[in-house]
């Protein structure tokens, strides 16, 4: 391995290790469904957030929600309220809480909890149908949650 490639590998590894300021899923404090502080300790990137929301293996929010603010999504679902104007209805902290675990805001919600790792019945390793080996990761990382929240904050009417 050349020196430069090796350095790149170190950098990649460093990126995969959670930053010190990151809040782990089990340590998240909800106040009436809301989460005050950034879960990653970093600001979110709305463009990345839109990608997370429309990628099947990530947020796949469009399976249930329409978002006119994201053009060219084919066949959005009709199960949940359209997300346009959502930043007028909820604060950033409330939106972070809804995306992390909507059941803390809407009791018994059909919306999955994207930043939760415990308390499931027969959880599987992603969509493999098999039991997970080792700890179950949340569906989205702390930074992906922040990216989604940053995008939702742009949805004003």
């Amino acid at each position, binding site marked *: 391995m050349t020196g430069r490639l090796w350095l790149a590998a170190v950098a990649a590894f460093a990126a995969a290790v959670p930053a010190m300021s990151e809040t782990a899923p089990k340590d998240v404090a909800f106040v009436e469904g809301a989460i005050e502080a950034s879960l990653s300790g970093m600001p979110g990137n709305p463009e990345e957030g839109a990608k997370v929301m429309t990628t099947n293996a990530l947020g*796949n929010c*469009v*399976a*249930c929600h*329409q978002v*006119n603010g994201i053009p060219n999504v*084919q*066949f*959005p*679902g*009709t*199960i949940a309220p*359209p997300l346009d104007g959502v930043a007028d209805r909820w604060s950033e902290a409330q939106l972070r809480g809804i995306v992390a675990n909507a*059941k803390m805001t809407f009791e018994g919600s*059909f919306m*999955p*909890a994207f930043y*939760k790792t415990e308390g*499931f*019945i*027969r*959880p*599987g390793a*992603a*969509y*493999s*149908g*098999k*039991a*997970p080996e080792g700890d*179950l990761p949340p*569906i989205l990382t702390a930074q992906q949650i922040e990216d989604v929240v940053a995008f939702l904050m742009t949805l004003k009417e």
Partner: protein
Amino acid sequence: LALAGTALADPVEDTLVVETDDGAIEFVTTTTAPDHLKDVMDTIYSGWHYREDETRDLQRDDFDNPGMVFVDRGMDLWNQEIGAKGESCAGCHEGPESMKGLRAVTPRVDAGTGALMTVENYVNECVTERMGLEAWGMTSDKMKDMLALISMQSRGEVVNVAIDGAAAPFWEKGKEIYYTRFGQLEMSCANCHEDNQGQMIRADHLSQGQINGFPVYRLKDAGILSAQQRFVGCVRDTRAETFKPDSDEFKALELYVASRGNGLSVEGVSVRH
């Protein structure tokens, strides 16, 4: 966009009639919900009503229905002398029409053994005990070909599985599973097929998840799918560890889901996308 959603929300109004050598069969694809469902829904619909025009049309004509190839394969297997001592299904049961009615009442508790029996369980009992062969895999080609052939013998008959008496404990267990929110997405069968039937989950029009049409020919897989194979797919999609076909859980679930369709016709081999 909201409009498109509402327009699609309802099951399509349509009638399924198939011409056969023995005359036309008119299927019950919409009917009043069985008593045990009355508090959650009024009407039950076959999954046929939720599919596209082209997919529905494929099921109207046996020459167009790709599932019929598997029925023919089942017929060949029925007649073959495959047993350890040269036994065949036909040798003991004569024609497959001897299986008429079975698909409409299974899963059911076998009076002799008290075991919950699917069509597949009955087949394997003969394969192992009466033909001296290794059990066929629950989702193997042989098993599904035979399932297709046997289901066709009850085509047009009304599903009527027993849920009381010896069946009651199995039915209760199946019901509990139906309402359990499995997996990392914490979703139950009822969340999708009861609360949100008629809605679009991305590009999929959610049906009531009935199994009167099973086995189905699935265009996406270009093959036959058993009810429990479909359950595997649905549970996997909740980011859950699935149960296996023929597990006690899925057998109980199959009985419970079948009972939600009591009153709909057996479709023999249906076509879904």
